[in-house]
């Protein structure tokens, strides 16, 4: 079992390397992280936090957009691509379970995500600490951001595999992935903000709004990192509006979502008839 998963993962890494996905993911993360750390390290004194913690708060807002995007870009081809190329029927006649195929892809794609995230955050941290050695005290926040980013990435990898299984065509899967990214990461928050403003402190804001935030893996990720760092003051918008949600709740959402999305992916892949 492990041997088959690792064999699939090795192959997927070869493919991702040749298709330049590794390079694209790492470059995206490094460039955006460096830009943010340069732009975000200005307002330190007023907040009483160290430089790195402030950079982590900026990186959190960046990762909410970028990590799901990179994960979806790597995963939308996973099943639909095999169907369209005609490689799936042969693969499924091998003594390998479908979940093992998905697990192999997940291992490879997660490994690439980890490399990209570590490179991006590492570059931002190195630049910040070089400028101000006292920023070392923010390393805990950075570590928390790193592992939650990996979980967020795994969640969207799973969602990507599920969409890829349901679409069965690469173009369809790509469309679904971009649509979902826009919906969950951009429009969802806008919708919530609009509702909160319209509700003006009523039942929606106090009862339903927190659950809706926790239900979205991207929002839960942002909530957890911001509440844990107590850096809500450094951000505005939905993240700042919900500092009333206990940390264990957002942590649960961050931890459960990867399992849920991968289960969804496995179920969707099982239904694919080659």
């Amino acid at each position: 079992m492990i041997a088959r998963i690792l064999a699939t993962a090795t192959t997927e890494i070869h493919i991702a390397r040749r298709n330049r996905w590794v390079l694209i993911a790492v470059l995206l993360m490094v460039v955006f992280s460096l830009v943010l750390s340069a732009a975000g390290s200005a307002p330190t004194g007023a907040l009483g936090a160290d430089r790195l913690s402030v950079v982590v708060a900026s990186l959190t807002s960046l990762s909410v957009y970028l990590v799901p995007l990179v994960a979806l870009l790597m995963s939308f081809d996973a099943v639909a691509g095999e169907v369209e190329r005609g490689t799936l029927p042969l693969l499924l006649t091998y003594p390998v379970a479908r979940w093992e195929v998905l697990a192999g892809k997940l291992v490879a794609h997660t490994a690439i995500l980890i490399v990209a995230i570590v490179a991006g955050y590492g570059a931002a941290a190195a630049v910040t600490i070089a400028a101000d050695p006292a920023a070392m005290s923010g390393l805990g926040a950075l570590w928390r951001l790193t592992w939650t980013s990996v979980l967020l990435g795994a969640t969207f990898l799973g969602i990507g595999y599920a969409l890829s299984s349901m679409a069965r065509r690469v173009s369809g899967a790509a469309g679904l992935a971009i649509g979902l990214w826009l919906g969950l990461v951009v429009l969802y928050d806008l919708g919530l903000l609009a509702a909160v403003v319209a509700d003006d402190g009523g039942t929606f804001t106090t009862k339903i709004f927190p659950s809706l935030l926790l239900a979205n893996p991207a929002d839960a990720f942002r909530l957890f990192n911001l509440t844990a760092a107590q850096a809500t003051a450094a951000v505005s918008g939905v993240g700042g509006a919900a500092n009333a949600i206990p940390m264990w709740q957002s942590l649960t959402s961050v931890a459960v979502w990867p399992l849920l999305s991968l289960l969804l992916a496995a179920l969707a892949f099982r239904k694919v008839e080659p």
Partner: protein
Amino acid sequence: MTSTLTISQLTKAFGGTKALTDVSLSVAPGERVALLGHNGAGKSTLMKIILGLIAPDSGQISVCGAAPGHASARAKVAYLPENATFHPALTGLEQITLYMRLRNEDPSGAMDLLGRVGLAFAAKRRIGTYSKGMRQRVGLAQALIGHPSLLVLDEPTSGLDPVSRRDFYELLDGLAADGASILLSSHALTEVEARTDRLLILSGGRMVAEGTLSDLRREAALPVAMHVTAHNGYDSDILAALPGAIRVQGALQLNCTQDDKLATLGRITALKGKVADLEVIPPSLEDIYSHFSRRDGQ
């Protein structure tokens, strides 16, 4: 000896269209069986059911003693899809290495395997740069991994040149001699080159004929054609002596049934002073095949 593959009364429909109706067959260890039929006759559907890729509507199937698609069946069955395709970014060696590891085989033999199908020279090139024939060889190489008890080959010789085709059948002979059962499909009887032990002909999802080539030849009972060339001036004598003969492009042609063959030959040899040459033309493989696979109403 028990069969490697047994199918009885298999039926499968897609929506309202019947793809397979009441198909039964069995393949013994070491037997090479060719499955013939037009496009859409149900060959690929039958193969996909044997592989467990799609489920039948009714009927019993046993593949190496297990249900089709069961892990123990998949461990013993190799498949070569029609137009084998692989990820274009992988090299032949990487692709075969993956397949060997999925079958729990030592991947250090991947290069040897590619050598066996004549691809060692391109092993480290990306499959995206391969020709169709080369991709087909990668497909063949992966079907040889381990020691499969049953090889299911969907139009394996399409895209191969005549020399490679002969090499391919030699490989199959070796596998069958080691006890592997082989089920291969083809469009035409000429393509299997009579290098198989038994032929099955599917037409419109039904098994319309089954047997060795000589069985089928006998069953089809197609007429034998005889071309008689007369010595100068004896045409009319021969035409008179052989009722049913007609003039075709300067020669005389006569059709007779298999049973009449010897009697007719006797009558022609009796005219020996008048006959310059005689050619006996048995029904071609194509004739036999189209006799059985002719679809209803055609």
